[in-house]
C-alpha cells in the first residue's frame, strides 16, 4: 500500500515538474493562463449579476400582476356569494363551483384550491375544490404550506409565497385569501400560479449570456496570445542570437524589421555584438602577434645560445689546462650561462602564458607520484644543506586530470623555494584529496613570511630579502609561473607564513573540469605534528637519484 502510494506520487511528480518547468520558462504560457483565469472570473461574476437582475425584474413584475389578479378575483367571488340567496348546502356548493369555474375561464397557467378554514365549525359542508394549472396532474394541496395557511385569517388580507409545482421543478407563486361562504362559514381560496414562462425566458437569456461569455473569453485569449507572441518573439530571437554569440559565433546578428521598439532593440543588440566582435578580434590579433613574437625571440635567441653554451662547456671542461684567471673565467661563464638560460626559459614561459598561448595536455595522473618524483630529484640538493625532506600521503585516490610537466614544475618550484628558506630545518610535504580536489602542502620551518610578504610572494622578480643570495638558482619568476600554471588547471596556489616559524604553500587541483570543491583536503597552515596525524609517511628512494 505504502509502495503504491509512493509510486503514484512518483508518477505524478514527473508531469508536475515538467509543467512547472514550462510554466517558469514560458512567459507566453504564464500570460495566457493568467488572462484565462482573470477572464473567466470576471465573466462568471458579471454573468451571475446580470442573470440575478433579470430574474428579479421578471419575477417582481409577474408577482405584481398575479397579486392584483387574484385580489380582484377573490373580491368578485366574495361579492357574488354575498349577493346570492342560496342557503341549502346544494345551492351553496353549486354557487361556489359555478363562480370558481367562471373566474378560471379567463386565467392561464393557474390552479385553484378551496379549503375549509381550520376554525370553521359550520354544519354546512362544501366539497373542497382543486384544479391543476395544466388541467391534469397531482393534487395541488401539497404546495400550500402550513405557514401560508396559518397566516390567513377570516376577513384578513391575501398572502403569497414562492413554491414549486409538485412533481416538477417549475417554480410557482401561491396566493391565499379568505372566503366567507354564507352559512357554510369560512373557507380559504388558494391560487397556484406557474412561473414556467418566466423560467423559460430566463433559461434562454442564460444560454445566450453563456455563449457570449465563452466567445468573449476565447477572443481575449486569442488576442493575448497574439500580442504576447509579438512581444516574446523578438525577445526569444535576441536570446537565441545572444547564446550563439556566447558560443563564439561572433558574426551572428539579429534581423531588423521596421523601426519600432523591437527594431531598436535589434539594432542596439547588433551594435553591441559588432563592438564585442571588434574587441575580441583585436585581442586575438594582439595575442597572435605576441605569441609570434615570443616564438621568434625564442628561436632567434636560442640558436646563438646553443653555440655559446657548447663552446662554454668545452672551455669549462678544459679549464684546468688554462692559467688560473682564464680557467676561472671559463667557470664563471658556464655558471652564469646556466642562470641566463633558466631566466630566458622562464621569461619565455611567462610571456607565453601572458599571451594566452599556453597549451595544456591533460591526463589522469597520481599527484602523490608526481610529488614523490620531484621530491626524490631534490633530495641531494636538500641534503647538501642538511635538510630532511619528509613526504606524507593520506590514504585514498589522489588522481586528477593534469598536465604532468606543469604540475611537476609547480612542485619543483615550491620545493626549491622551501629548501632555500628552510635554514636547515626539515621540510614536510603532504598529499591528500577530497571528492573533487587533490592537494599538496609544502611546509618549511625556516625564516617564514610576514603577511605583507605573503601578499607579494607571487609577484614577478620579487624577493623577500634582496640581500640574500640565491642558493637554489631561482630566477625570481618560479612562483609567478607556478601560480599561473595552477590557474591554467582551474586550481589554486596559496601561501601562508609567519616570521621565524616558517612558511607553507598549498597547491589544489580539481580532479576533473568540474572545478575545485568546497571542502579543502588539507589546511593551508599546518603544524609539524599535524602531518603524522593526517597522513602516513612515505619513504623516498634516494639512491635512484644518486646513481
Amino acid at each position, binding site marked *: 500500500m505504502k509502495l503504491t502510494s509512493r509510486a503514484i506520487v512518483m508518477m505524478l511528480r514527473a508531469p508536475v515538474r515538467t509543467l512547472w518547468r514550462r510554466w517558469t520558462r514560458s512567459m507566453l504560457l504564464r500570460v495566457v493562463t493568467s488572462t484565462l483565469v482573470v477572464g473567466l472570473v470576471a465573466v462568471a461574476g458579471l454573468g451571475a449579476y446580470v442573470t440575478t437582475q433579470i430574474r428579479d425584474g421578471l419575477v417582481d413584475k409577474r408577482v405584481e400582476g398575479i397579486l392584483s389578479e387574484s385580489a380582484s378575483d377573490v373580491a368578485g367571488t366574495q361579492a357574488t356569494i354575498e349577493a346570492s340567496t342560496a342557503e341549502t348546502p346544494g345551492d351553496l356548493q353549486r354557487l361556489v363551483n359555478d363562480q370558481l369555474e367562471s373566474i378560471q375561464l379567463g386565467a392561464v397557467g393557474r390552479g385553484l384550491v378551496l379549503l375549509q378554514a381550520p376554525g370553521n365549525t359550520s354544519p354546512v359542508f362544501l366539497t373542497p375544490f382543486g384544479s391543476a394549472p395544466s388541467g391534469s396532474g397531482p393534487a395541488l394541496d401539497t404546495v400550500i404550506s402550513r405557514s401560508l395557511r396559518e397566516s390567513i385569517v377570516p376577513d384578513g388580507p391575501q398572502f403569497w409565497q414562492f413554491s414549486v409545482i409538485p412533481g416538477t421543478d417549475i417554480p410557482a407563486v401561491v396566493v391565499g385569501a379568505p372566503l366567507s361562504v354564507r352559512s357554510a362559514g369560512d373557507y380559504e381560496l388558494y391560487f397556484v400560479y406557474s412561473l414556467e414562462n418566466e423560467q423559460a425566458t430566463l433559461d434562454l437569456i442564460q444560454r445566450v449570456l453563456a455563449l457570449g461569455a465563452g466567445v468573449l473569453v476565447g477572443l481575449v485569449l486569442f488576442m493575448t496570445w497574439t500580442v504576447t507572441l509579438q512581444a516574446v518573439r523578438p525577445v526569444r530571437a535576441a536570446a537565441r542570437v545572444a547564446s550563439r554569440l556566447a558560443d563564439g559565433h561572433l558574426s551572428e546578428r539579429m534581423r531588423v524589421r521596421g523601426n519600432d521598439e523591437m527594431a531598436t532593440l535589434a539594432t542596439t543588440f547588433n551594435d553591441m555584438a559588432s563592438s564585442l566582435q571588434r574587441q575580441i578580434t583585436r585581442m586575438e590579433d594582439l595575442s597572435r602577434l605576441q605569441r609570434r613574437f615570443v616564438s621568434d625571440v625564442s628561436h632567434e635567441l636560442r640558436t646563438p645560445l*646553443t*653555440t655559446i653554451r*657548447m663552446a662554454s662547456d668545452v672551455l669549462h671542461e678544459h679549464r684546468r689546462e688554462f692559467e688560473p684567471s682564464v680557467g676561472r673565467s671559463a667557470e664563471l661563464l658556464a655558471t652564469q650561462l646556466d642562470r641566463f638560460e633558466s631566466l630566458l626559459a622562464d621569461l619565455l614561459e611567462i610571456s607565453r602564458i601572458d599571451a594566452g598561448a599556453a597549451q595544456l595536455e591533460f591526463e*589522469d595522473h*597520481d599527484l602523490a607520484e608526481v610529488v614523490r618524483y620531484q621530491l626524490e630529484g631534490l633530495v641531494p640538493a636538500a641534503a647538501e644543506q642538511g635538510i630532511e625532506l619528509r613526504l606524507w600521503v593520506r590514504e585514498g585516490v589522489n588522481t586528477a586530470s593534469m598536465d604532468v610537466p606543469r604540475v611537476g614544475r609547480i612542485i619543483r618550484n615550491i620545493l626549491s623555494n622551501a629548501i632555500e628558506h628552510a635554514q636547515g630545518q626539515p621540510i614536510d610535504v603532504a598529499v591528500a584529496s577530497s571528492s573533487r580536489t587533490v592537494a599538496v602542502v609544502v611546509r618549511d620551518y625556516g625564516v617564514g613570511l610576514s603577511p605583507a610578504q605573503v601578499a607579494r610572494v607571487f609577484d614577478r622578480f620579487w624577493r623577500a630579502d634582496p640581500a640574500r643570495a640565491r642558493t637554489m638558482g631561482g630566477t625570481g619568476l618560479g612562483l609567478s609561473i607556478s601560480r599561473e600554471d595552477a590557474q591554467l588547471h582551474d586550481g589554486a596556489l596559496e601561501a601562508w607564513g609567519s616570521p621565524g616559524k616558517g612558511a607553507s604553500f598549498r597547491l589544489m587541483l580539481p580532479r576533473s573540469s568540474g572545478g575545485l570543491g568546497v571542502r579543502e583536503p588539507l589546511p593551508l597552515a599546518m603544524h609539524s605534528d599535524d602531518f603524522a596525524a593526517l597522513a602516513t609517511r612515505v619513504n623516498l628512494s634516494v639512491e635512484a637519484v644518486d646513481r
Partner: protein
Amino acid sequence: MVAKILVVDDDPAVAEMIGIVLRADGFDPVFCDHGDRALGIFRAEQPDVILLDLMLPGKSGIDICREIRAESGVPIIMLTAKSDTVDVVLGLESGADDYIPKPFKPRELIARVRARLRRNDNGAPGVVRIGELEIDVTGHRVARDGEVIQLTPLEFDVLVTLARHPGQVFTREVLLEDVWGYRHAADTRLVNVHIQRLRAKIERDPENPEIVLTVRGVGYKAGGYTP
C-alpha cells in the same frame, strides 16, 4: 667502428660547434645546411644517427624526418629551438626517436647520441611471443602470422621491453629510462607518441589495442593473452 653522425642544421656556428663536440668524443660528423639536400646526403652517407634541426631553409625538418622514416629506421634526434608542444609532438609523430631542446649541453648531446647508438640488449636473446606477434629478439624481427612488420629499432625496443614482462605495468618514467636512457626529468610525451606509432603498426585495431595496453594514470603493459 667510428659512428657516422649526420648533422642537419642551417646555422654554421651551431653546426661547427656540434662537429667539434662530436669529434672530441670520437664520432665522425657529416653536415648538411639545406633542407632540400638532406635526403640526398643521407642516402650517400648512410649515417648511424641523424641530428635534425626542425627549422631549415627549403624542406622542413618534419618533412625530411617523414621521408627518411619511409625508407629507413635510422635513429633521428630532433634539435628544436622551440619547445612548443605542437612542434615537439609533430616532430615525434613524423618519426623522430628523441629530441633535444636548444640550447643543450655537449654532455647531453653525446648522451643522447650514445643512447641511440647502443643497441638495447634486453637480457637474453631468443624468441618472445605476445598475442599474435612473434618477436625474434636476436634477429630484430617482428612477425604476425609469418608476415614481417617493419619497426624502427626504438619501436622494437619498446615492444621487447614490454613483451618480456607481460602483465607488468611500466610507468612512462621507467620506459624513458629503459628505452631512451634518460635518468630523470624527461618528457613523457616521448613515450606517448611512440606507443601510438607502435600501436599503429602492430595492433589490428589501434583504437582498441590488444597488445600494448594503457593502464590509466600509471603507464603501459603488454596484454598477456595468447589466442
